[in-house]
């Protein structure tokens, strides 16, 4: 790496953001199914979008969480090469988002809460995904999740890759695991755009403010779920226990709201996001 421009030197040695990017992508990090296995009793997976196919990058199903019937949807990465390919590295296609939507509508029909676990580098950027309307599938979910008349609790468990994550991320509560990230663009792509050098990703990671603490400070999430001291990969059971605690509390609180109140609360929560502007007139402005 001797040909790297010298401005990498300005990245502090304790670049927490970059460390968290690496933890969020850690090959041993618990994935959606690892949590589902620990948190959901009698889990039954539900396949297919009834339109085109079944997307293994999104797992959807139902079961019991602490004796409550729930529907759960998670973006799923693979661990070995074969699984990674099967799961398309956790990058969903339109049929994945449409399957998620279908299962959410089932949840609404039977008045069951929805839990979503976000963990994706992004929605799949491929020819077939474009042909089948990747953008439309995500857009659809954003609007339809906003009006779902049942509780939705979303948790970024690993990588919150832009619109690909948000496509299952419009909830009454949105949390991030302590070492998860949530970003509008990957640090590598950001660095490639700014410095034309993906190797400067660590610098971009810090600039993008993508850690759980950053998003909490910006008012974009409701809370940060602790992980075991070394990170979630070090102790799946402990990580799942922390997640359980938060989910339980959130579902308890939301169970008290009527369907109308749930829709209203979710709307107001997102409506307030991004209040970082001024409207003070500029007397010298051209026209």
């Amino acid at each position, binding site marked *: 790496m001797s040909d790297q421009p010298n401005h990498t030197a300005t990245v502090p040695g304790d670049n927490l953001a970059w460390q968290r990017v690496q933890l969020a992508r850690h090959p041993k990090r618990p994935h959606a199914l690892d949590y589902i296995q620990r948190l959901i009793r009698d889990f039954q997976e539900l396949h297919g979008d009834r339109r085109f196919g079944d997307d293994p990058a999104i797992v959807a199903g139902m079961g019991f969480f602490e004796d409550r019937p729930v529907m759960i949807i998670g973006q799923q990465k693979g661990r070995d090469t074969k699984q990674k390919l099967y799961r398309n590295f956790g990058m969903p296609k339109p049929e994945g988002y449409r399957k998620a939507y279908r299962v959410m509508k089932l949840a609404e029909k039977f008045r069951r809460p929805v839990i979503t676990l976000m963990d994706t580098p992004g929605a799949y950027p491929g020819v077939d995904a474009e042909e089948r309307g990747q953008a439309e599938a995500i857009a659809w979910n954003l609007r339809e999740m906003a009006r779902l008349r049942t509780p939705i609790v979303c948790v970024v468990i690993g990588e919150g890759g832009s619109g690909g994550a948000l496509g299952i991320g419009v909830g009454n509560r949105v949390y991030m695991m302590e070492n998860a990230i949530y970003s509008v663009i990957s640090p590598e792509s950001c660095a490639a755009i700014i410095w034309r050098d993906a190797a400067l990703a660590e610098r971009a990671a810090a600039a993008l403010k993508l850690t759980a603490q950053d998003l909490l400070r910006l008012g*974009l999430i409701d809370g940060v779920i602790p992980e075991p001291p070394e990170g979630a990969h070090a102790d799946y059971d402990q990580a799942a226990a922390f997640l359980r605690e938060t989910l339980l509390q959130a579902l308890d609180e939301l169970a008290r709201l009527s369907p109308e109140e749930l829709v209203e609360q979710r709307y107001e929560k997102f409506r307030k996001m991004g209040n*970082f502007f001024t409207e003070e007139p500029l007397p010298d402005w051209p026209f």
Partner: protein
Amino acid sequence: MAWFSRKKPTAPPPPGERTVRTEGLWEKCPGCSQILWRKTLQENLHVCPKCGYHFKIDALTRVKLLLDGEWEEHDRWMRSLDPLEFTDARPYKQRLATMQEKTKMLDAVISVTGKLHGRVVNLCVLELNFIGGSMGCVVGEKITRAIERSLAQRIPLIIVSASGGARMQEGAVSLMQMAKISAALMRLDEAAVPYISVLTDPTTGGVTASFAMLGDLNIAEPGALIGFAGPRVIEQTIRQKLPEGFQRSEFLLQHGFLDAVVKRSELKSYIAKALNVFCGPL
């Protein structure tokens, strides 16, 4: 057709550029490579008279193209306070200032109320020249307010997109604008107030993956690049060249994601007719 007669005050080019820059008068058509006189092009709504190529036009030109005459601008002073204190090659605040000077806009969207063939409409137009028409908190808030205005007054909404997507420099704040706007569109949908989405060249990323694809009608100008991922990203993923016409308006029409591809010269009357059906004739 009075809208093109008002000349924009143009600053004289810097001395060194006067001799080399001919695009003040002439423009080469990317569609057919013909050299076109700029005035001819302007009079033809910035569409190539030879091959029909639709040149990109700025937001103000678009407003003039779609509205009858006068309009009221909303939220005109709104500008970003740089939520991330983002610095890349230079501070984002500086980039904003440069863009504001260059485009005479404070951010990448203009939001107006005016009349379209006599019918009052709310119109938002994205400005591609302002950081690629990207959506940060200002675009998100101005569009959301326009939706709320449409909802409160039951006025049809038109959004003309031209954007690379969410604005990188505002990070996850930009991302959440997708959800915020889509949620507002849910309310508009519930109230059955018409929303027409017009997609122009190019519309990609988080803008396509939120409001641009959520119109009661999604219509596009011919030949516009429309997609979720940009073509270069896809080429890197699949490691091969993309076929001709991939992600263009006609491709999306064929795959079922557009109601129609409409020529610029017919856009206004197309929208007027659609609103006659949705709202009843005037």
